[in-house]
């Protein structure tokens, strides 16, 4: 037997490597899976009101709760009022996530917001028109606060068009 094939002194010669192909989850993954399931059970089993003890239990998972919460948050099927928790689970997921500030929530949330509030035909037309014009979308008559800042056309243009006439 080649010395390299011999087991180390502190290991049993009968050691068999774990089978990682399709078997039970590795030990490190198990708690995370349990957390995800628990978070899901807590949120989908509720109603319009999120009890403080439920929120506290989820928050106690800390960072491990972020991914399960995100999964619930972006699942549009869970927003169905006829579905689990009367559609409130994503709302509560967002509420709990708000208490677990984390950079990685930003991208999914921006995607959900973009998908959940598509531009109305009017706003899309205004936005397109403002973009084509190339100039500032609107000008403020509010003196010192009317300076630079981001160009945020659609809402601003719509609001300006609603400004009371003097």
């Amino acid at each position, binding site marked *: 037997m080649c010395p390299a094939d011999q087991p180390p002194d502190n290991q049993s010669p009968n050691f068999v490597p774990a089978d990682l192909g399709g078997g039970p989850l590795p030990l490190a993954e198990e708690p995370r899976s349990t957390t995800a399931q628990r978070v899901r059970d807590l949120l989908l089993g509720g109603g319009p009101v999120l009890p403080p003890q439920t929120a506290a239990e989820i928050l106690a998972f800390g960072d491990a709760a972020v991914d399960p919460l995100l999964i619930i948050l972006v699942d549009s099927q869970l*927003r169905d009022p006829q579905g689990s928790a009367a559609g409130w689970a994503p*709302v509560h997921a967002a509420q709990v996530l708000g208490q677990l500030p984390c*950079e990685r929530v930003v991208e999914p949330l*921006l995607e959900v917001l973009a998908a959940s509030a598509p531009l109305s035909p009017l706003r899309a037309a205004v936005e397109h028109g403002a973009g084509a014009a190339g100039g500032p979308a609107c000008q403020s008559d509010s003196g010192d*606060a009317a300076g630079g*800042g981001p160009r945020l056309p659609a809402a601003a243009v719509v*609001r300006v068009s609603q400004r009371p006439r003097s």
Partner: protein
Amino acid sequence: MDRAYRLQLLSVLANARVRDGRILVQLVHALSEFSPEAAMYLAEYGDPAALPELSRALDAHKLSMPDDPSDDHALFELREAIQLLGGKLTAAQRRKYECARLARRIAVSQRVGIHGERSRCAMRLWQWSTL
């Protein structure tokens, strides 16, 4: 519920401690939809780049009727957000704010029956509105 959902999303984004232009755009877009809440979230987000939009929203706000000043909640939040972000109200905005504040005081004193207070406030509101 969709409203609650969107407000929660905006709240999480505003408090995610991430400075991203897309977050600012979403919060500013929300000003036309949920003015009071969006103003609060912009203040929490803490980017003074929102000041011009907050100022425009305050300019665009129409004062509610004196007998029902409850719609002026947005105006108070906009003013608060502007100040928290280091901005200043213009003279016209200050006048608008004072009108709303006096109208609110009149409404409150009507509710609790402080007639002297009511007539003093009504007089000041009249003075402001004629400036």
